[in-house]
Structures are given as C-alpha cells and as structure tokens.
C-alpha cells in the first residue's frame, strides 16, 4: 500500500494506565474511504485505540499521524474526526435540531446554511420532522441516528464509532448495520468502527483488525480473516470452527486423527506441531466407503438454514454444518477437500479463546 493513501497512521502506540499496559506497540494504518473495524473481546484495547485517534486519550508512547501531520498531542476539537459514542451522549438540554447544529454553530456557519444541513442530515437518517423533539422522547434507535447525524453533519474525514449498535435489539441492529454501510459508501467517509460482535465486523468492514490483550493479532479483509486465520484464537473468535492438533509431515501434507491429509499450506518445519482448522461447513457427510474419516453422529440440532451435528471420528468431536441430516446414532463418513484444511502455527502461550457472542 502506498504511503500517500494512509489517512491515519498509528505508529508504535503504547498506552499504560498505572501499571497495566492497555496497548502495547500498536501499528495500524487506515486508508481513505476505508471501513476499518477493531474487533476483540472487552478489555482488548479496541476502545482505547479509538479514543487515542479521537484525542480523548494520549498514548504513553508512539505517534498518531493524520494526513501526514503529527496530531499525537492535539486536543479533540482540533482534529478532523467525529465520534459516535456508545451511549450516544446526546445533549439532553437541547432538542434534536440544536443537537445536530451544535458543531456547525461552533464553526460559526450562518443560520440558513445550518438549517439546510440539519435538514439534509435528518433526511439521511430518516428522521424528517423531528427537529423540535426533545432527545429524551426518542427511542434508542432514533437517538442513535441523531448521534450519527450530529457527527456526520460536520463532514469529518473520519467517523469513529464506539460500539454504536450495542444497545439496540437484534432486528434494529441488523437494519442499522446496512444503513451505516450505505451512508459510508454514499458519503465516502472513512469509518473506524469498534465492536465485539464478529458477525457485525464481517458484514460491514473492508478491513478487520482483531485485537487481544492490547495487541493487534491479525489485520486483513473479512474473507481472509475467516478463511485464513493466523491462530486458533482468531479462528475461534471469528465464526465457528473445529481446531485439532496435528503434525506437519512435509509441505502440503499434515497428520492428524491418525491419518495423513493433503493440504495446501507449506512453509512449516518438518514434524512441526500445528493447529489444524476445519470450518463446520467444510466437512461433508459422505458414504463410509469414500470417507476420509468415519464416525458416529452424537447429536443433531436444527438451526434453520442447516443442521448442526456433532460427529465423533478419529478421537475428536467434529462440529459439522450440513443441509443434509444424518440421524443421531448413525455411522457416517466425513470428507474434506485439501483447500479447506487450514494450518496455523501453534500459539506460544495457551490461553482460552474469546467466546463467541
């Protein structure tokens, strides 16, 4: 990626509170018009990273570069970014119109123009006619839209969003995900989005940075993160997975469950211990005669689009997603194509993966 495309560049950011290191040596750049998501469990440092970009926290070490200029120590009001806060933080003493006009009045824009812009914003978030309403009289979803409008009306180059959908119910959240994505594409603004919801991250982002314990573990497109997670931790955090210990026999050949499997990964040491990832939807139920593994169906759950089956084979309980149901207690064969076997380096320290939301 060319350097000139980098709108925000975080360089070696470290943040220490008292004795705890919340962020350790974060390096991250955000391109113009990108939708970047910081994804991770609570306490991983994603919100702190966002607050450093917004100017609400200053890094203990490192620099924040914005459009080529060092803004590390600039206060929030000197930065060309705006934030949508988790609990919206609307001003309760002002009505909807005055909330949205807040930033424009500080910028000393003339009244007619303010009225025009606020009207346009209300149209964008689908709340025309709400100008005179008090913000307390609005529902959570409506307050959220006003918070977005209040930030976007200032035409920031970057919009920071701190778990903006966390307080909404599932249906509303899905709708807002699409709407946010639509706004981002229509306005051509860079979005930096913080969430702990992996599905939300996969749906909306151009790029996902998976964070854990103050570090960025992997940064990539949603598809790459899903298909080629760097570690068992990320595989577990994003989507559902079967992860089993194996040994690399040679390039493109891995041994697990007492058998050798052809795969597409290479570059590991001979006999290196590895984590093998197979997504539940990549395991196919086949006849026992052509199967790579045979096993017993232990349980079957109907999930709507597919069945989720737990199949014990080769001393491991495999989670299998399939539209074809194999009855509980039956003997079935499993097969997987080499492309769907993903080999990951074993993480040095073993710790439990973040839960799936």
């Amino acid at each position, binding site marked *: 990626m060319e350097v000139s495309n980098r709108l925000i560049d975080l360089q070696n950011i470290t943040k220490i509170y008292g004795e705890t290191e919340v962020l350790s040596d974060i390096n991250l750049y955000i391109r113009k018009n990108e939708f970047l998501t910081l994804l991770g469990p609570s306490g991983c440092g994603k919100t702190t990273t966002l607050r450093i970009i*917004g*100017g*609400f926290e200053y890094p203990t070490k490192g620099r924040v570069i914005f459009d080529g200029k060092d803004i590390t120590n600039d*206060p*929030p*009001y000197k930065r060309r*970014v*705006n*934030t949508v*806060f*988790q*609990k*919206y*933080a*609307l*001003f*309760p*003493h002002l009505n909807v119109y005055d909330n949205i006009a*807040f*930033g424009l009045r*500080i*910028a000393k824009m003339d009244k007619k123009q303010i009225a025009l812009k606020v009207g346009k914003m209300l149209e964008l978030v689908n709340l025309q006619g709400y100008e005179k309403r008090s913000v307390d009289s609005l529902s959570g979803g409506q307050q959220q839209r006003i918070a977005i409008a*209040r*930030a976007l009306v*200032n035409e920031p180059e970057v919009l920071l969003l701190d778990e903006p959908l966390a307080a909404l119910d599932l249906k509303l959240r899905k709708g807002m995900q699409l709407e946010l994505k639509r706004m981002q594409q229509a306005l051509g603004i860079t979005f930096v989005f913080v969430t702990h919801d992996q599905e939300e991250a996969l749906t909306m982002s151009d790029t996902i940075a998976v964070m854990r314990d103050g570090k960025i573990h992997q940064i990539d497109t949603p598809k790459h993160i899903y298909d080629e997670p760097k570690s068992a931790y990320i595989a577990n955090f994003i989507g559902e997975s079967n992860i089993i210990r194996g040994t690399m026999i040679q390039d493109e050949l891995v041994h697990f469950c007492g058998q050798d499997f052809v795969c597409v990964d290479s570059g590991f040491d001979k006999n290196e211990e590895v984590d093998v990832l197979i997504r539940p939807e990549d395991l196919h139920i086949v006849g026992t005669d052509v199967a790579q593994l045979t096993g017993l169906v232990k349980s079957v759950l109907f999930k709507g689009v597919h069945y989720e089956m737990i199949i014990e084979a080769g001393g491991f309980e495999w989670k299998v997603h399939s539209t074809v149901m194999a009855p509980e207690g039956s003997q079935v064969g499993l097969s997987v194509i080499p492309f769907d076997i993903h080999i990951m380096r074993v993480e040095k320290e073993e710790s439990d993966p973040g839960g799936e939301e």
Partner: protein
Amino acid sequence: MKKWVRGIYLPLILLFLYLPIVVLIVQSFNAGVSRARWEGFSLRWYKELFASPQIMRALYVTLSIAVLASIFATILGTLAAIGINSMGKKASSAMLTLTNIPMTMPDIVTGISLMLLFIFTKVSRGYFTMLLAHVTFNTPYVILSVMPKLREMNKYSYEAALDLGATPSYALRHVILPSIFPGITTGALLSFTLSLDDFTISYFTTSPLVQNLSTLIYSEARKGIKPTMNALSALMFVALLILLLVVNRRTSADHK
C-alpha cells in the same frame, strides 16, 4: 383511647412547634406596648420598623450579604463540584468528605474559629469578614446540590462537545452548565436562605458597628424586647418560609 391519641398527637406537636411563632405574629399587630394585654389591632410597629434607620441599615446588610454570599458561594461551589466530579474515585470521595465536614460542624465552632482566624491574621472584623464567613459556610451546600446533577450527566457529554469542535470553556458554558443548572439554582437559593437565617457565625465575625438583622435583634433583646422586634421577626419568618417553600418545590421537582 388509641384513636383519641392518634387524633391529638400530631395537632399537639404542630401546636408546640408553631404556637410561639403565632404568638409573635399576633403580638406584632398589638397596638399597645404591653405583651400581656391585647390593646387592639394596629400596624404601628411595622410603621416604626420601617422608619428606624438602624433597622433599615441592618436589613440592607442582611440582604446584601445574602445576595453577594450566595453569588460567590454558587460560583465557587459549582466550579469545585465540577472539579471534584472529574477527579479519580478515591480523590473525589476524599474531597467530598472534606467539603461535607463544615456542614456537620456546629455553627458556634465555625463562628469562633473564623473569628480567631480573623484576629490572628489581623483582619479587622466588619462587613467584609462577615461576607467571607457566609461564603465559607454556604459553599459546601452548593457543592452538595450540584454534585448529584453532575453524576446524572452522561459522562461522555463533555467529550462529545469537544469532539464537535468545542473548546473546554465552550463545552463548560454550553453543555455542562445547562445540564446542571437546576442543581446550581437550588444551591443558590439554599445559600441565600442560610445566609438570611444565620446568627451565630455572623455574631462572631462582624463588629458591633456592622449588624445584620439577627445580630441586631439579639443586641436589642438584651435591652428588653421592643415590639418593633416582633414585627421584624414576623417579617423574617414569612420571608424565610416563602424561600424554603420555593427551595423544597425545586428539590422535589428535581427528583421526579
């Protein structure tokens, strides 16, 4: 029997509480000098009251001190509350304890210690020292009434204002102060009432040359109570009653 006790208990308490004041008010309309005999209704003492330059001067001192002290205490207390609220948890609760102690201290202790301080620092006592004393004992009450409003505020409101381009002082004026305004006015009214009401602390921090109404009544009472004092006391009672009603209404409205 039980019913009878229940029926008489509350009226009895109210009677003991308010009878003295009722007597005072009734006496203030007594045409005669004697307190033992009713000589007919008259506004004579009220007329004399307003004609007395000494009393009018004391009234001026009382009112001007109450106004100035509540203004200064409100400014100080509000700023202090904002500061305390943005401190860390430990520091903020320590500071709150420190600011609460003066409220629990007996007035006489506050009064004497302030007097000693003024003597020690060689500040001659008078109008200025009384004003300082009133600001001092009012400020904790302002902090106490502003604090809950600050705690209620969304803690990101201030940051949201900065985010939208507001400087810290613009955010203070346009976001924080409007949000806590009900608490500020309650604090100011409370200060004004306390200031009007105070005798003990004023007594120790002023000179005999500068008297407010309460110290004047006290020194007059030692010479024997003039009926004008009845009229004055009755007026003070009514004024304070009205103020208290306003404050109470505000606080109960805040809690809704």
